[in-house]
């Protein structure tokens, strides 16, 4: 009993530094933001308590709604695009259905190693009105007014960013899935093949259940990453033209650091946290259900 208590204290003492760091760096700022989100600020001075006014203003602001929708698009591309594509590419390489798998592995992984800012600059250089692609098309079609119009379209301006995100981040998931596929014993595949299982059956009954945990982890990563998207969008378009490619983090940045609306910005951050927690809880629920089904 005494030994148990002593062990317990030792564990607590080991946990303490991490717990303190967690409180100081995560919990305290979130609680501070929550408090600030009910206030109005002007140049470092709190000018009053406004209750839920900030939240109402944010949720009814068309610019925030547009930003949130853009985040949803990023999330959909991440969860329904990057992860399935990552699995497919990993399986393709794992089953060695292409030659020179090492080469493809390296080529597919390359984009994630490049900084988002560099990626954004490269894409801008290619597709801007004075970029290589635009100049080439102008010459070929003899149309000096050609520009990539999709960048100026309110509904589809996000598409180029989504394509870049898909291209850049799929590789990360591919590597994660490939590492996990390599943990499945070869004998399992051999046995399934001997039993006459078709490839689709192998994927559905062996591969996907084995990868379920990883798919869940990747989904959490994809959702949280999507909701905090900032760097690539900022470097590529800064949310423009107008607010067509704005995302919630950019909206938050502008309100907080350009207009010094600290209370308003804090309310945006709380909304992002709530959305993240809500969505991740939903994914956990779906995962638990799926797990029960396979059990």
């Amino acid at each position, binding site marked *: 009993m005494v030994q148990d208590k002593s062990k317990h204290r030792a564990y607590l003492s080991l946990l303490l530094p991490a717990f303190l760091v967690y409180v100081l760096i995560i919990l305290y700022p979130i609680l501070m933001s929550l408090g600030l989100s009910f206030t109005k600020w002007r140049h470092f001075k709190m000018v009053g308590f406004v209750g839920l006014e900030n939240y109402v203003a944010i949720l009814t602001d068309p610019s925030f709604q547009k930003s949130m929708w853009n985040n949803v698009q990023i999330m959909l591309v991440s969860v329904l695009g990057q992860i399935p594509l990552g699995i497919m590419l990993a399986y393709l390489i794992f089953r060695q259905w292409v030659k020179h798998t090492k080469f493809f592995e390296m080529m597919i992984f390359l984009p994630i190693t490049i900084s988002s800012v560099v990626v954004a600059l490269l894409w801008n250089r290619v597709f801007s009105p004075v970029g290589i692609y635009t100049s080439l098309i102008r010459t070929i079609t003899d149309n000096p007014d050609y520009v990539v119009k999709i960048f100026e379209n309110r509904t589809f301006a996000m598409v180029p960013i989504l394509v870049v995100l898909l291209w850049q981040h799929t590789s990360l998931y591919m590597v994660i899935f490939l590492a996990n596929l390599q943990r499945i014993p070869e004998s399992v595949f051999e046995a399934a093949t001997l039993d006459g299982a078709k490839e689709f059956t192998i994927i559905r009954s062996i591969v996907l259940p084995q990868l379920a945990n990883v798919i869940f982890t990747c989904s959490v990563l994809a959702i949280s990453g999507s909701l905090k998207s900032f760097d690539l969008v900022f470097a590529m378009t800064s949310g423009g033209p107008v607010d067509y490619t704005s995302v919630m983090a950019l909206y938050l940045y502008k309100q907080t650091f350009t*207009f010094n609306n600290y209370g308003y910005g804090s309310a945006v951050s709380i909304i992002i946290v709530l959305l993240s927690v809500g969505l991740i809880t939903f994914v956990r629920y779906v995962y638990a259900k799926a797990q029960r089904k396979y059990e």
Partner: protein
Amino acid sequence: MRKSIALLLIVSLLSVSVVFAAGTKESSSSDGKIHLRSYMQIEPTNSQYAGHNAIMAGFAEKYPDIIIDTEYASGEAFHQKFQAMAASKQMPDIFTVYGGARTAYITEAGLALDIGKEYLTDDIKNQYSSATWGTQGTNGEYWMIPPSLAVCHVVYSNDQLLEKLGLSFPATYEEWLAQVSVIRSAGYYPVSMGNKDPWVVNSWLLSLLVDRLGGPDWFMKAARGEGASFTDTPFVRSLQIIKEMTEKGMFSPGVNQMSNTEADQEFYQGKSVYLIDAGWRTSAMDKDLPSDLKESISMHVFPALQGEVTTNTSTATVSEGFGISASIKGTAKADAAWKFIQYYNGQEGASIRAQYGEVPTYKLDLSQVKMSTMQAKFASFQSEHEMGYVFDAVMGGEGVSMLNEDIQAMMLGNGDPSEIAADYETFVSKNDFNRL
């Protein structure tokens, strides 16, 4: 066990103290010199600031007992760090400060010294052009001496191209519109302008149009909501002109996707006949362009508009300058900082800056200064044109940002001038500090 936990806690706390107690260097040291910490919104590696670097070297040579330890930053990064400095009360002794609202987070928080009260005398003021002493603080405070005027509207023309096309710089807006078909059929773009960052059209074009059509009196009334508003004709008509220019193909394609630099390149490469840009672009032109191209570039203002109340004007605002921290008021450090500011803006600094292509606010006989090609043209431009206000230097940033996005949407075919004007007026009446 308790001892172990206590020891662990002490070690953790000490580690944190060591990490966070980096502190700052002592400002007055035992060497008997005055050490000043400065934070400047300048890019010393950019050739545009060669004059600044020369002044810093000149000051260090003349005043060896004043050591200035400078940190540089630019753009948004400058403001973010400056806000953090202000919030943590770690203010530098000398810093970049704006006369308008851009650094209101410093000036309205009482962190900048009112040099108008502490140091400026009529004698000093008389050494500068009258435009230097526009309003800065709402209670008549002066935070800095503007080293130069930021001219925010110039229509640059490539005269070689104009001549080739049998055209000359238009006298009226209608004549300018009529040139579009001639220029386009010859395979050129009429006007380059990079509005990817949507403040460009506001600063470089809308300000000019509103000033021409409304004049300064109307504008100040509209800003304050005293008998005029932004739904009045001058403002709506200005927006209509921008819409018309876009629809009639005046701008090169993708004007809202193009950065400033890209628009400049398009003009320099001879793909467009005109460039709408700011006056400070002349420094880069002097450095980057071959002499024959520099010779063929002329500087103009927007052609005459029907119903304009001011004619042949450009727009300008005083540039940002250096302020002094209020926390060192009345100390030897403040006097040393003032010495630096006087050196920078006065006879010595102005002469150096003029040599590097800047037209200073200090009354300097520019005929005595050897100027480069574009700088000579810029000096002559400033003497030929009266300067109106710059819209976004007067109005609050949040409303201007909303307006800029609305203008960009209008240029992309998603907005109506009257509705944009009404939305802006609604926002200003509720939120802009000019009305509150």
